[in-house]
């Protein structure tokens, strides 16, 4: 039994060993720590539950009394007949413009950055720019739209009655807003494609484009689609930039026989904008039951899109 060296301590008795290695209530600290973390996680989830419950309860009378007509009715000053149809049309057109503009450009940019771009300072700069753009507050994109896209839409002849403050400008603005997200998610999906597949393609004498088109993109596609669907969800939920570029926050009457051109160039609104503008209405019904009902419609759309994305992601997991 050495007394001088701490490295060679007194031998423990078997009772002491048994006492320490047995599970016991003696040490409460680790349990308290775990409990604390669990509480914090539960609170986060509880907030979600309370939020959804509160909104569903508030929205219930609208759906009970109006049923589907709440969906199919357009804007109205009368809370009895006001519905979200006009807003759904606006949101869908914006989403289509986003899909047409941002998806090809964003996926193309991702292919360029991952497959073609040389590893030099210019590429790194482009990469950094994309990341920074993704962090720019959405309202700044609204200012960009106001300064650039609204006049641009006017110039190319889509100004119409709104002088460019229409759904076309809104779509372009949203496309610019989601573009960096499309690039980042697509680039991640492309990066996840095993290099062995590329090598196999090059090994049999394929050109870069042939490898990308035939082998990389088919494998990356589920991931890319997941990203684009989530992006669409983002575009559906954004409000602030639309406010800046002149979305209608009050009542307007879309003419029943409006041509497609008039629909594109006339005043418009979108689902989240309706939530906002009804919240501010002086008539209490709008804020108390119609706005939450519109939120439910918005969330249902987003849950469908998210579910689609998760489904796609799981499909891709199965393969790899």
């Amino acid at each position, binding site marked *: 039994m050495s007394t001088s060296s701490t490295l060679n301590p007194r031998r423990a008795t078997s009772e002491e060993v048994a006492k320490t290695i047995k599970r016991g209530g003696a040490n409460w600290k680790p349990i308290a720590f775990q409990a604390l973390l669990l509480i914090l996680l539960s609170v986060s989830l509880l907030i979600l539950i309370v939020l959804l419950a509160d909104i569903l309860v508030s929205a219930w009378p609208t759906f009970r009394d109006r049923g589907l007509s709440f969906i199919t009715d357009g804007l109205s000053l009368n809370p009895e007949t006001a519905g979200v149809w006009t807003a759904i049309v606006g949101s869908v057109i914006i989403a289509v413009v986003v899909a047409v503009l941002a998806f090809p450009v964003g996926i193309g940019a991702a292919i360029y950055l991952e497959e073609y771009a040389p590893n030099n300072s210019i590429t790194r700069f482009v990469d950094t720019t994309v990341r920074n753009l993704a962090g720019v507050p959405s309202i700044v994109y609204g200012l960009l739209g106001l300064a650039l896209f609204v006049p641009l839409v006017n110039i190319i002849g889509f100004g119409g009655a709104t002088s460019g403050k229409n759904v076309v400008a809104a779509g372009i603005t949203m496309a610019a807003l989601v573009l960096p997200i499309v690039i980042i998610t697509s680039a991640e999906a492309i990066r996840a494609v095993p290099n062995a597949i590329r090598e196999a*393609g090059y090994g049999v*004498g394929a050109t870069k484009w042939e490898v990308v088109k035939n082998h990389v993109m088919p494998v990356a596609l589920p991931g890319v689609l997941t990203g684009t669907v989530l992006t669409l969800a983002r575009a559906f939920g954004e409000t602030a930039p639309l406010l800046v570029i002149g979305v209608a926050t009050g009542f307007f009457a879309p003419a029943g026989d409006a041509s497609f051109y008039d629909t594109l160039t006339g005043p418009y609104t979108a689902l989240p904008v309706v939530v906002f503008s009804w919240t501010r209405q002086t008539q209490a019904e709008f804020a108390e039951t119609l706005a939450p009902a519109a939120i439910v419609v918005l969330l249902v759309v987003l849950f469908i899109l998210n579910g689609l994305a998760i489904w796609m992601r799981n499909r891709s997991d199965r393969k790899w």
Partner: protein
Amino acid sequence: MTDRIETHLGTTEEGQMAQEQANTSTTASDVAATSAEDSDAVRTSGGDPDDLNPVIIELENVNVYYDDFHAVSDVSLPIREREITAFIGPSGCGKSTVLRCLNRMNDLIESARVEGGVNYHGVDLYGPNIDPVEVRRRIGMVFQKPNPFPKSIYDNVAFGPKIAGYKGNMDDLVEQSLDRAALWDEVKDKLDESAYALSGGQQQRLCIARAIATSPDVVLMDEPASALDPIATLRIEELMYELKAEYTIIIVTHNMQQAGRVSDRTAFFSVDIQDDGERTGRLVEFSETATLFTTPEKQETEDYITGRFG
């Protein structure tokens, strides 16, 4: 070290002979013995050039750099037609790097730079106006881990010819290629199934079928059996031996026994580690396989093959 090997030969073709050789001994286990006899003959006859197959690829002072890092130093060696040439050596000796120079796969690594000459049928592969895509069609490659495309067995084989603009009957070509890769009988009823449903060894033979479908004349194999079990490995080795009748094969291997079993000639690479930790590979010795394994010229080679190093 290369003084023993003539590097410039007439184009007189001895393929016929090689083919007969191949036919007379069909199992891999015979290979080492056969080549041992051959090489003895070559040595005693004083290296008569007529006994040797023509050179198809000639490396001249090849240096490979990754940015400033000197990965491979000054490799010169000839690759002869319808032979199996093995590259062996310890990890990091640059044997795979040299292999990838031969069909310009190194182009895909941006920082890689190749200096010196890689002459294929006398044409410098790194010369102006050479399309690496065309090079890779003629010099095929099989990789370390089986890497079939996530597509059907048929599409795996048909992809190369299709992009190369193959005009003939694709079904026949696929069948021939699979047949030559000794896979046809196992897969002929499930050509539409995913290549991933095959076993590892089958996948690797599919990759070989895919490589030969573009009718290359050289096939590079980068440790083709290292991810396979011994039985699958044996199948691949037998296959290589059969393919030698029509293709020039260069194989990188970690496995000295494998090099001894299948190859006609072996290049032994080693690595120099500088004071700053930089590792530069170099060619130590290149000769007939049997010679290299029985009476190596360099002490370094002997140390390696007897297991004293690496």
